[in-house]
């Protein structure tokens, strides 16, 4: 079976090829010398090492270097903000296990950051880029389009209006400082009643 002969879609349990011929890759498993699909998706062969894999449809999200993700700030330390990675920006599904990710003070914004508490607050939701996925998740918001996308008033806990330069509480008028994501925030897919693209 060569690349051209592969079906467009395979289902769990579908036979893909013999183990003498291929190496079992992602979305496959080997059983007694035979390789089967474990995921629903499109099969592909890497010609360099003869690895056969299945690129899943409706995949369980995983964090990969370069991805945009939403993360919630849990704690602010001197040199970093500790976050929970919630979901990739392109998926409506959460990342299993909600792994911890960190934003180092040097990656909080473009230019020098005096103190992180002037940029983020606990509970903020960030749009961030994954700098490193393994072994620990490292995030960056040092781009104009990245940063805080949702924040609550430190005084009264209402959602802050982030439209202006200075985030303001619509309820109590309290003004705060944040490293805001500028530009159109991608809405999480499926949250608006529109159909998911898969």
């Amino acid at each position: 079976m060569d690349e051209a002969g592969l079906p467009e879609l395979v289902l769990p349990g579908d036979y893909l090829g013999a183990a003498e011929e291929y190496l079992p890759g992602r979305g496959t498993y080997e059983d007694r010398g035979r390789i089967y699909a474990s995921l629903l998706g499109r099969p592909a062969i890497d010609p360099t090492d003869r690895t056969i894999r299945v690129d899943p449809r409706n995949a369980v999200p995983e964090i990969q270097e370069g991805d945009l993700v939403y993360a919630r700030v849990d704690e602010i330390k001197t040199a970093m903000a500790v976050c929970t990675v919630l979901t990739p920006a392109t998926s409506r599904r959460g990342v299993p296990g909600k792994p911890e990710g960190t934003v180092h003070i040097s990656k909080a914004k473009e230019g020098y950051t005096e103190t992180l508490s002037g940029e983020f607050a606990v509970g903020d939701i960030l749009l961030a880029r994954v700098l490193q996925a393994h072994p620990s998740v490292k995030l960056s918001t040092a781009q104009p389009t990245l940063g805080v996308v949702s924040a609550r008033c430190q005084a009264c806990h209402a959602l802050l209006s982030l439209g202006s330069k200075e985030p303001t509480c619509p309820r109590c008028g309290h003004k705060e400082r944040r490293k805001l994501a500028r530009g159109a925030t991608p809405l999480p897919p499926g949250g608006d009643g529109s159909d998911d693209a898969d």
Partner: protein
Amino acid sequence: MGNIGAKEVPVLLSPEGLRIDGRKLDELRPIEIRAGVLRQADGSAFVEWGQNKVMAAVYGPREVHPRHLQQNNKAVIQCRYNMAAFSVDERKRPGLDRRSQEISKVIAEAFESVVFAEEFPRTSIDVYIEVLQANAGTRCAGLVAASVALADAGIPMVDLLPAVAVGKVAGAIALDLKKEEDNFGEADLPMALVPQSGRLVLLQMEGHMTEEELSRSLDLGVAGCRVIYEKMKAALRERYSVEPVATEAA
């Protein structure tokens, strides 16, 4: 309707060997499967099988509730099989009775036998099965729906899990009992098959059969599962809109 009116045993098998609904002994009831029917779930499926209507949804891998069930080396698979109050002739009190809890457990264990749960440590894969209309064989219909929903949710597993019940009616071994046959028959043997390995991961039995009858029942059930397997695959192909391909001879 139901047991209330039925005072005597109906004729379950005609002299020509046809069953109460005209089926042959090795014939399944009509089955329709649709994948991806619920937008809010990570995976879902609806199965209409004879007069059974069953919906299944999968959520996860996600956080484990309750927390103490969390496992550090793999995902836990939690299953909830539930019947709507109006799904049976005599109204069922809402909530999980002992029967539903037992069925939930054996279905969860069937899936644990095929899902690569170690890929998602410290998470839960939640499988919900709702029986909306029941007419014998709901655990098999639920398992089929849930299996399609798991594939739809992108959960890695060894294979899909087709399931069917075999029984004994009027002394004959018959595939896929309907309600009258289940109520008045002599045995019921639900099973779920892993087609890839040919092994059974759900097997229950109630009633009485000889060793020879049981042996034939297993063969009949496995053959029935293989038919259902193709319908499950067709439903998933339709959902992801790909024409059926000729499966390579293994």
